[in-house]
């Protein structure tokens, strides 16, 4: 890692980008392309891949300068999986060819990504996936069923974990792939959510052919690759940059605007959540600053845990704050949204949607297990399937 003194001046780079591409007149995807080319997409990525090989913590400087200049950012709502998960995984494990092909359009959000991990029988126990990938020449033939796939209906590409060997213990028999979602054999069915929207889907794969070029990492190393994806997902989900950026900001805004919600009891609660949210934001900031290398570790699980807890408590509180409004809902019509939204619609939607925060990307129970076992080093739970070939595990 180059140290901060020697690294190129980020401000100068941002100024150059803004000078050559006026954010006010440049098409957003074109602007984002130029930003990628300038190494300002993810400063901790290598040069030529949207980055400058700096520490992860320095991205914040870039983001702040660009935001100040009114520059468009990538669409996190629509492409959170691509930006937050597929990209870092590809940088860590992908081939040069893959990185050249996928990273730039992913950053400009010309390509939207989804994540084909979970299955009806494999949620928390992701290593139990049963979707099979069988080699056939220089291709793989994939059959299986995925579930809860957010945004599959908008996606161009997917990251996929599939089983390539059932004769070894479950973690050893997985392989990681990139799938073109328009390929024949892929069927996407909407799965409606508690909010009324069909944000996620069921995805059926039958005889889907994936070229071996689109394998990420070695055959049988899918678990290691997926772990990288998941650690990044947890950082992405747990991230919040500004004070009052998340759910607490909406409640604070309501409090300032509307004296009718102010009671002594509510005030105590408001301040409690304000303090917790702010402290967690600082802890997240500390974690980011400490991440010199590109890859977050199990500590990121703690952030996701805290984020989910606060989002749920604060959105629940928001309904109690203004009970007449809390009893209402904006609209139950079933739609397939363009992107996931935690902050959109009314307070009722936010309350219900936040319930997913402690499930998606690994449940809060699993986050606690990770903290307990991998951060604190406590002995693992008894796992009856340990060391047994996947095909012999009773299911």
């Amino acid at each position, binding site marked *: 890692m180059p140290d901060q003194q020697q690294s190129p001046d980020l401000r100068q780079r941002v100024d150059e980008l803004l000078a050559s591409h006026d954010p006010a007149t440049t098409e957003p995807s074109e602007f984002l392309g130029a930003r990628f080319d300038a190494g300002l997409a993810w400063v901790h990525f290598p040069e030529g891949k949207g980055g400058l090989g700096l520490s992860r913590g320095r991205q914040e400087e870039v983001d702040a300068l660009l935001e100040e200049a009114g520059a468009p950012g990538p669409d996190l709502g629509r492409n959170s999986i691509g930006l937050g998960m597929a990209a870092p995984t590809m940088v860590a494990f992908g081939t040069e060819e893959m990185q050249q092909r996928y990273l730039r359009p992913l950053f400009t959000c010309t390509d939207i990504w989804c994540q084909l991990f*979970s299955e009806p*029988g494999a*949620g*928390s*126990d992701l290593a*139990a996936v049963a979707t099979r990938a069988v080699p056939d020449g220089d291709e793989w033939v994939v059959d299986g069923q995925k*579930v*809860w796939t957010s945004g599959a209906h908008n996606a161009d590409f997917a990251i996929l974990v599939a089983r390539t060997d059932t004769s070894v213990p479950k973690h050893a028999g997985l392989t990681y792939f990139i799938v073109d979602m328009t390929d024949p054999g892929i069927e996407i069915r909407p*799965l*409606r*959510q*508690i909010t*009324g929207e069909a944000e996620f889907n069921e995805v059926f794969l039958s005889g889907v052919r994936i070229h071996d070029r689109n394998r990420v990492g070695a055959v049988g190393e899918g678990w290691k690759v997926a772990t990288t994806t998941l650690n990044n997902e947890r950082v992405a989900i747990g991230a919040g940059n500004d004070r009052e950026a998340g759910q607490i900001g909406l409640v604070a805004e309501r409090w300032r605007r509307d004296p009718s919600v102010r*009671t*002594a*009891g*509510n005030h105590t*609660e408001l301040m409690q959540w304000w303090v917790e949210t702010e402290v967690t934001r600082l802890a997240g900031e500390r974690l980011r600053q400490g991440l010199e290398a590109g890859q977050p570790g199990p500590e990121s699980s703690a952030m996701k845990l805290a984020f989910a807890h606060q989002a*749920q408590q604060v959105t*629940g509180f928001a*309904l*109690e704050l203004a*009970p*007449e409004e*809390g*009893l*209402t*809902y*904006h*609209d*139950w019509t*079933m739609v397939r949204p363009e992107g996931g939204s935690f902050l959109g619609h009314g307070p*009722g939607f936010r*309350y*219900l949607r936040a*319930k*997913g925060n*402690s*499930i*998606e990307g690994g*449940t*809060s*129970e699993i986050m*606690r*297990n990770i903290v307990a076992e991998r951060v604190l080093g406590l002995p693992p*739970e*008894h*796992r*009856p*399937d340990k060391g047994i070939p996947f095909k012999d*595990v*009773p*299911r």
Partner: protein
Amino acid sequence: MTDLLYTDVEESLRSSVRSTLQRSLDEGLAARLYDEPGTDVSAVWQALAGQIGLAGLLVPESLGGVGAGPREAAVVLEELGRTVAPTPFLTSAVIATTALLAAGDETHLPALAAGERTAALVLPWTARRGAWSPVQGSAEPVAGALTADLFVVPTTGEGGVTSLRAYEPGDVELEAITSLDMTRPLARVTVRGEGSEIASGQAAEAAVDAALAAGAALLPSEQLGLAQWCLETTVEYAKTRVQFARPIGSFQAIKHRLADLYLLLVNTQAAARYAAGTLADDDPDQHVAQALAQAFCGDAAVRAAEEALQLHGGIGMTWEHPVHTRLKRAKSDQLALGTPERHRADLAGLVDLPAH
């Protein structure tokens, strides 16, 4: 001390309500109401009112009712809460009926008791005893109004005195409000004309307070039933859902969570029974009991529904699984008839623990 247990009579009432609901209510109805709010659900209420006489449960036999009391109503609400059944029992047979009974009405009650009509007390669904104001033209969000045939409205009469008046459907404009809980949909109610007076002055105010007190005393039983459904359903799921080659219920973390929830529900049951019992006995501690139960049971039911959702994992987030209908009811019930925060403040006054 009021009796906190259930009598045999109550248990047999429970089983008839439960079996009638099993026959007349299909599991998918609650979720369907979100897409088709106009779905005719009257058959459920007709079955309950016709076969068990629930419409007139609190009405004396002299007015055509069953002459039972709050304890029995509480048991009925436990069953209705389990199933989040879309019925006007709480809004009509408990709250509006109590207002009419307290006001000494003899005109409207017989039709209500017979299950021929249902009534709604027209006040925001967040109103509570001692904390409501007479309706000036319109009120929202009002529960139970969309399907009501009689509207009991506290208004301001001549000389600024409170007047409790009855309005017929023709004098009332209803506007449906998209509700968090579509199994108990809300509406904006606008009244026109004079209606007819049921009571005036202090009698009118006392009747409304009595109705809200009955609501506060009995809503906790609905919350109890709902919470128990959540616990039972989740315990069953935890026994069968396998991850990491084990039923998830074999993880000690999950066991302890469910054990804690059970303890919470034991307390919820005690609070709900105490509120129902003290109301039935006209016990001097009844207002404390109501604030206590409202402060406790609303949060408990929300917690039970939230735990149920979480422990079901991704399935809990889907429309296919009924837990979402329970969460929406639980969260709405927590806001209904005064939030826990408001009831804690009321309680502080009642037990002489002032904030300052």
